[in-house]
């Protein structure tokens, strides 16, 4: 693998994370910088993801780069049976950086081994989505002024939600305390609890979304996805259990902020949107600055 790729959040050390956050705050001050002038970025979306693609393409455009690529596999030669290896090798000849979204897990890691240019993983199935994690970290850093010693509450689908798993791994550098609120069927997998145990990071599990959130610095909400359930009856049982309403925020800390990777369905009531503690729309904007910073680092750009 070429060492500048970002495939998994674990590719970044604590120092790498802090460096990207510093660069992101520079881009936030002034997002329009012609640092990618004369460079071509390949945006290969083998499955549609409008939100992530637009965020990346905005980041690239604001840096003056050019984009080639496709937004779903039906408009690529994959439909003719071309392998990922061949597509990657072909595109590698044309561009300076590859941004890749793929439905198969491990696709970006494989592409990073085949390509000579850096590969940024924009999501590989249910596995990793490290730029989402970095924008979550940037949002936490910006709203709390630090990543250290925070009470992080994660709510909803903690079993299949890749964003919570990656965030948990990344936050483990910063002495956090975790609280997991989920139904039994969707609780945090043992592998991640063992990961925390090994690092002596405290965590608490709850079944109810109630006053326990008054201790939170960050309330990270996730969507319970219908497609995760083999049995539709199980989905019906849990889908409405964890809905955050404005009235529930009365006793929460002043610095507390609500994050959500979006799209939301009904897990955050719309009456929360006007509360100053609702941060999920700014969070999405932070994704542009964070992706600018990740590209900056991947290409070893200079100001």
């Amino acid at each position, binding site marked *: 693998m070429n060492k500048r790729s970002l495939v*998994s959040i674990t590719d970044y050390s604590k120092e790498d994370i802090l460096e990207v956050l510093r660069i992101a705050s520079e881009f936030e001050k002034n997002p329009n910088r012609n640092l990618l002038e004369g460079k071509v970025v390949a945006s290969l979306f083998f499955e549609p993801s409008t939100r992530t693609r637009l965020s990346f393409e905005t980041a690239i455009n604001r840096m003056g780069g050019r984009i080639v690529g496709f937004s779903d596999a039906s408009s690529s030669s994959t439909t003719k049976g071309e*392998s*990922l*290896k061949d597509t990657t090798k072909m595109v590698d000849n044309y561009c300076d950086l590859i941004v890749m979204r*793929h*439905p*198969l*897990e*491990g*696709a970006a*890691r*494989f592409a990073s081994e085949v390509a000579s240019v850096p590969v940024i993983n924009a999501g*590989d*199935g*249910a*596995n*990793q989505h490290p730029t989402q994690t970095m924008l979550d970290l940037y949002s936490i850093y910006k709203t709390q002024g630090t990543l250290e010693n925070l009470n992080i509450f994660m709510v909803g689908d903690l079993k299949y939600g890749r964003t919570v798993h990656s965030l948990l791994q990344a936050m483990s550098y910063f002495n956090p305390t975790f609280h997991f609120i989920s139904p039994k069927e969707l609780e945090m997998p043992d*592998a991640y609890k063992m990961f925390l145990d090994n690092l002596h990071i405290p965590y608490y599990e709850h079944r109810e979304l109630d006053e326990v959130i008054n201790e939170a610095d960050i309330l990270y909400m996730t969507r319970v996805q219908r497609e995760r359930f083999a049995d539709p009856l199980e989905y019906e049982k849990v889908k409405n259990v964890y809905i955050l309403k404005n009235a529930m925020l009365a006793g929460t800390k002043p610095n507390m902020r609500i994050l959500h990777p979006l799209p939301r369905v009904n897990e955050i009531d719309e009456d929360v949107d006007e509360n100053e503690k609702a941060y999920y729309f700014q969070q999405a904007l932070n994704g542009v600055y964070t992706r600018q910073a990740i590209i900056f680092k991947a290409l070893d750009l200079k100001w």
Partner: protein
Amino acid sequence: MTAKKELQVSAVENGTVIDHIPANKLFDVINILGIQNSENTVTFGYNLNSGKLGKKAIIKISDKFLCDEEINKLALVAPSAKINIIKDFEVVEKKTVQVPSHVEGIVKCVNPKCITNHQRVRTKFDVVGSSPIVLKCHYCEKLTDQEHIVII
């Protein structure tokens, strides 16, 4: 009087004997070591009585001396196996199976959505647990545990 045990599989003059293979793992061992493509003389016994394993298997390969890397592949299917290196009908060296730190191209990833199960990508794992064995896929990062290990 010392009763010499009758050998159930005839002796080799020079080569490698892999003993104490659980009987139901014989064909996995053959597969992992690529014995089916070997030009050497190979004899094996299947469903032999064993005090320890109940039914065991044994493989004797003439004029071939397995290296440590080959032996360690056996950790995935037959960690109980014992390897004897034979010269002039005598055991000159005994080896046991050590769990390797990486495994490449032998095991199938348990995750149906892993790229290695859809495209021609050689599987690679880090061994993250040794007893029982747990493999972490280098690509999809999912864990494959001992009971789900399938040899390609």
